[in-house]
């Protein structure tokens, strides 16, 4: 038994974890890219492991387990570049802002540790939710069909809520300043102007999203290209870094202190994140970024620590429930899930307990989550020690150059243009004084248009 199942499963989870560390730490390298490579290499694995007495279908299951482990570990580790380098992916885009703030307060490691706690908490929440979801999504409640039917209205409601809850009060009444220059001051309609500015940013980002999703990006080196990489890096990464450089910020000494967490803060943050991420796992065209916007609407004036906990939980729960969706509604909702679907014979989860294949994949996910948790803390601490020794302006400039080079490598010249424009749009929010999260219109608007 140990030799036949448990040991190969452990090895598969370990391989997946290592790959997840690689994809998580390198901005622009997505789990989907690795999953496709693993799919193409799976026949070689069958041939190689055939000599050890493991049959073909088990090998395919082990490869699928590795992909699941990669996917889970990635959601732990990808917070590190988001925090220290300001290079987000769709799922971590909004987390850059509070994490970056904590970095500038010397609490970068705490941000990373909070993220690891949020992600691991989501795994626990996910396991608790898994069986209730079986009944909620499928027979007898059939919640999936209902949710799908009203999805467009739900999304539009989310957007409206996000925009009208903008609290910035912007000046709009012109007056002459002390030096005789024309200046603006606040008036009774300042909050309305703030909401109007949020709507404009949302629409501008949405227009960017609609344009870039139809762009023919191609890597000059034949690498897998995704236009979301330059778009989100620009909106939430390089724009933040440029803003830091403009403001003359410096990375202070980083303290390797455990984060200050209260149970009353952790439990609701992780629970909201876990639920939001799990729901999005079932819906077509939805990413963790959309779940993030939804989840944040439930938090009134959230502290950065709560935001990080919630967003990390969403990210990991989303990845876990994409796997659940594959077995519950037989629909692959991510690139990695598509590959898993190709590798194994997915049978619908129609009884109370999960099918054996899902159980084995969940074991891989659990192993990867445990390893991912400790690896995130370990690597986060190493980077936190390293970062203050480097001048921040030079570091930020270096990171911007690194992102630009990565963008060129993955998406070519058009990708660079996208990076420039999205960086510019990303800078608008702090320049105007509104929340940068409205730039999530880059995903929300195209999704609404697509499913309308």
């Amino acid at each position: 038994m140990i030799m036949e199942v448990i040991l190969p499963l452990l090895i598969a989870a370990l391989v997946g974890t290592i790959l997840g560390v690689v994809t998580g730490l390198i901005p622009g390298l997505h789990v989907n890219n690795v999953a496709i490579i693993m799919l193409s290499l799976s026949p070689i694995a069958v041939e190689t492991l055939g000599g050890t007495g493991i049959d073909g279908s088990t090998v395919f299951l082990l490869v699928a387990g590795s992909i699941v482990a990669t996917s889970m570990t990635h959601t732990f580790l990808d917070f590190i570049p988001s925090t220290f380098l300001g290079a987000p992916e769709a799922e971590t885009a909004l987390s850059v802002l509070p994490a970056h703030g904590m970095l500038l307060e010397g609490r970068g490691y705490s941000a990373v540790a909070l993220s690891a706690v949020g992600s691991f908490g989501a795994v626990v929440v996910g396991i608790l939710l898994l069986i209730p979801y079986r009944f909620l999504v499928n027979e007898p409640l059939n919640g999936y069909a209902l949710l799908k039917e009203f999805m467009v209205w739900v999304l539009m409601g989310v957007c409206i809520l996000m925009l009208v809850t903008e609290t910035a009060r912007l000046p709009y009444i012109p007056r002459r300043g002390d030096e005789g220059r024309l200046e603006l001051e606040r008036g009774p309609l300042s909050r309305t102007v703030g909401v109007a500015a949020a709507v404009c940013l949302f629409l501008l980002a949405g227009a960017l999203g609609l344009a870039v999703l139809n762009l023919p990006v191609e890597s000059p080196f034949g690498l897998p290209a995704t236009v979301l990489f330059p778009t989100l890096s620009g909106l939430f990464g390089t724009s933040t870094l440029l803003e830091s450089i403009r403001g003359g910020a410096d990375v202070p000494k980083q303290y390797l202190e455990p984060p200050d967490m209260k149970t009353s803060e952790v439990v609701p943050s992780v629970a909201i994140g876990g639920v939001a991420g799990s729901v999005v796992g079932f819906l077509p065209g939805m990413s963790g970024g959309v779940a993030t916007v939804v989840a944040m609407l439930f938090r009134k004036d959230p502290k950065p620590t709560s935001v990080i906990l919630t967003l990390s939980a969403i990210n990991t729960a989303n990845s876990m429930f994409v796997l659940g969706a594959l077995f519950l509604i037989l629909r692959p909702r991510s690139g990695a899930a598509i590959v898993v679907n190709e590798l194994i014979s997915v049978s619908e989860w129609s009884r109370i307990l999960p099918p054996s294949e899902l159980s084995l994949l969940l074991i891989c996910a659990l192993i990867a989550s445990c390893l991912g948790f400790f690896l995130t803390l370990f690597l986060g601490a190493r980077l936190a020690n390293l970062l203050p020794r480097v001048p921040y302006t030079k570091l930020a400039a270096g990171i911007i150059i690194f992102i630009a080079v990565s963008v060129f490598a993955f998406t070519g010249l058009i990708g660079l243009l996208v990076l420039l424009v999205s960086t510019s749009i990303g800078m608008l929010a702090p320049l105007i004084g509104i929340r940068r999260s409205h730039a999530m219109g880059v995903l929300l608007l195209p999704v609404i248009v697509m499913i309308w």
Partner: protein
Amino acid sequence: MRKFKLGLGAVRSFVLLFSLTGVLILTLIAHLSEVPDVELKHLREYSGETVECGGTVIGSVKYDSGSVKLLIHENGTVVELYIEDLDDSFEPGERLSVKGEVYTYSSRVGVTVQNGRYISREGKVPVLDLLHGSNTGRIYNTMGHISRVHRMDRGDLEGEIIFDGGLNRSATYIDIDASELAIKPRTGDLVNVTGLLTDKKQLVCFGPGSVVVLQRAVPVEYSIGRVVDELASGYSELITRSLIIECYSKYEPMGSSLYLSDEPSGSDISIKGRIDRDQGLFIHKGDLVRIENASLSWEPQEARYVLEIGTLMLIEPHGPWSINLDSLSWGVGEFEEVEVTTTGSLEEKGGDLYIVDEEVMLRVVGAGEMELGVEREYSGVVRFDTGRNDYYLDTGGIP
């Protein structure tokens, strides 16, 4: 040296202007890089290229791998769409617009679409239920009887069946991919079909739900006389039945045609039957045969009904035919490979023996010991000698 510093207002204006211009430029690039919108009839010219095209769904097949094959049409052109990954399903009559790569193989043209993101629904055309010959290019969902099945029973994956859906007497051909059907339709079945009526009056059906057998035909045992009687009395229901008849081959089968009657010879009541050429090779004049899975179809050129024969079995070969050499206007050719008896006197000419009746002569071979000049009855099988290009009677030692 004076330090150059931009004010917040200037930075804000510059960033806003750059953002707007950038989005416009990117939208323009996206627009310019749009793929060509191609009509289905011109798709073949774009083989290997990515295009946008659209059409109305005729039918679909979903495979275990998650991929889906759809058949769509536009202005009489039908192409297949191969969608590599699709959660959704499409119904006949839905109008789609898709983006994908064009492929061609042999006479087929198709478009490979990566997933559902590259498909947009553009409404649904009404599906008609009353088959009408003039309303071509429309999707029909209609009911009727199968009046003939052609090629399907020989295990071909693709085939056609003839369907009587009420188009007066001009039957509608259904072009189907039989491999995708749950049950193979048989002659006389009551079916519900969904497909596109082409201008050739062909109903193109595709997918598991395109031909649904509502009621299996119950075969009925008939005689030729009863078939002819009922046709004459206008008993129209007969044309939708699957028939079983035991009868005689009235003449030697010619190609795919043979004439059937209730008596081995002498009866004027007969009906033309149509068979696969191969099936007729072992049937001869006068043989008692059993035909199954037969149905009547109207032959407009000859203004009569013809029996379309699904299965033809030989029950009993006919015994020797009594022939009169003198009265055979077309010679013995029609009795080739048939056992006959004839009367005449034996004469020798040029080293060969001949049976002579009046002035008509038939060469005889293998007659054993025969007496010249004596008139008597001879039995044997009429055969054709390819070397000498004539017929002879092979007595096979029969005296």
